[in-house]
């Protein structure tokens, strides 16, 4: 469904993506994994025909640049953070973007209800939270069941709770036997739930292309839990965790907790027992071992 062959993108003298080749078939969900600047978003922008590039990108046989309009007709896209027309009402936005896809939308409310925005159709977009805007973008992306879905770090602007809910929603709505999904992420939990394959990028080059379950097993064990706390509770938290035999160290307003996946819940439970409120958390590659190629 998506065929990328020898994709190279340069900005001035800097080569951001170099000779990337990749094929994504119907029913596959491929995650692009890598640190910031690895080239994930650039590849996605090339696929969407937003950037000129060298090499070839075909979507269902259509050239992503030359046949851009027809190719994008087959694509649903959710960006990292939605820059929408703020004065538009939610139902107007769905109708507007539906029209651009050549669709006449009969029931906007049903479309919104699928992503948990039922009853919000009359609100202006500026009234929506970040999470709700992402749901709106997903609702628009899924209009009329596109065969290709492209997601660009869609949870990056959400808090931990919003992230978990949105990933759950993505998992329930985006998996389809006929659909090819390409998404950029640097969160193992997203890859665990959404991906069937993981392509790792380093400095714009593909360094590995592996099965998602295998990737999660190898990388997950090397990750740490990054917990955000109130500044005055960090010392207490370190003491609680270290006395419980859990390895933890300070990192600014938070702490890094090195634990196997099963041990992370125990660490959070200990903090809760000690009445230390966790404001947010994320699972990130261990700072000392950011190289994540399995």
């Amino acid at each position, binding site marked *: 469904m998506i065929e990328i062959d020898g994709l190279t993108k340069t900005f001035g003298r800097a080569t951001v993506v170099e000779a990337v080749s990749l094929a994504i078939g119907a029913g596959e969900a491929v995650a692009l994994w890598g640190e910031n600047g690895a080239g994930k978003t650039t590849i996605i922008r090339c696929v969407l025909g937003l950037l000129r590039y060298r090499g070839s990108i075909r979507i269902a046989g259509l050239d992503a640049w030359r046949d851009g309009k*027809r190719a994008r007709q087959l694509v649903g896209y959710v960006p990292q953070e939605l820059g929408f027309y703020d*004065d538009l009402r939610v139902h107007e936005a769905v109708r507007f973007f539906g029209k651009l896809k050549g669709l006449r939308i009969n029931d906007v409310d049903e479309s919104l209800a699928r992503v948990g925005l039922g009853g919000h159709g009359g609100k202006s977009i500026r009234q929506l939270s970040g999470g709700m805007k992402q749901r709106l973008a997903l609702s628009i992306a899924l209009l009329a069941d596109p*065969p290709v879905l492209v997601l660009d770090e869609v949870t990056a602007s959400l808090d931990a709770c919003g992230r978990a809910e949105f990933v759950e929603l993505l998992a329930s709505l985006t998996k389809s036997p006929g659909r090819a999904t390409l998404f950029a992420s640097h969160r193992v939990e997203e890859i665990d739930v959404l991906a069937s394959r993981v392509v790792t990028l380093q400095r714009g080059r593909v360094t590995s292309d592996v099965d998602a379950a295998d990737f999660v097993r190898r990388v997950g064990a090397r990750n740490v839990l990054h917990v955000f706390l109130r500044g005055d509770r960090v010392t207490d938290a370190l003491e609680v965790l270290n006395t419980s035999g859990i390895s933890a160290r300070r990192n600014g307003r938070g702490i890094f907790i090195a634990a196997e996946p099963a041990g992370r819940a125990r660490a959070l439970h200990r903090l809760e027992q000690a009445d230390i409120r966790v404001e947010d958390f994320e699972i990130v590659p261990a700072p000392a071992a950011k190289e994540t190629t399995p």
Partner: protein
Amino acid sequence: MSDAMTSSLSVRDARPPTFVSTIATISGRELRDALRSRWFLLYTLAFAVLGLGVSYASAASAGGGVSGFGRTSAGLVNLVLLVVPLMALTAGANTIASERERGMLGYLLAQAVGRVEVLIGKFLGLAGALLASICLGFGVVAGVLAWNGAATKPASLIQLAALSVALALAMLSVGLLLSTFARRTSVATGAAVFLWLAFVLVSDLGLMAGVMTFKLPIERLFAISLANPLHVFKMWSLQSVDASLDVLGPAGLYAQETYGRWLHLMFGASLALWTAVPIAVAAVFFSRRSTP
């Protein structure tokens, strides 16, 4: 996805939007956006209020009557020369640059749209807003003058409004060209204001300096005037209202005697070129350029 949600079950079955329907969707959106914006309201109000002021002042100094209306028209021409280009240039310059800056342009272009469709859609939407603003401004002036029993020539006012729209389209096109190049709204707006100043002030002063310094012959002076859309608008409006260009002095007389009836065509062609060429250049540039 259920049938109730969309009339087509899948985008694979949906008819791809045509060139015209995409342009219509985008221009409709742009028009609504512009009509709801503060700039539209402010410019329209300013244009109407200043138009009324100019009309009253001109009519009062001439003691009313139809000759008074000739002065009113001349005053309105000068007002249009200042307000309309500024309004159109800034509206055009802001449209793409601001969407690029706010991250909306990338999202829009990631949809099933062509870049030329986006550009033309934006042009038409803003043109509609400018048309509404100019018509409202002239309408208010005409209405209040008529209400007060002042002499008006509706045909002249309509002509003047139509020529103002033609000038607005040319300036909008130039503004859109600026917008496709500028990465930031502030840069686009700054460039638009600079161009406005250049058209309004520098070109007049430049012509005067040219005449005095280089002893420019009259035919060259007229040719240079034809290259400035504001000069073209001024000459065309005065000719339409007065049926002569005497008021412009020797250059006007020369043009009148040399080109006669062809002047309308020459003025029209100049404004048409000022509309078509910038938007064509913008379309080529916008279509080939990556969207950051």
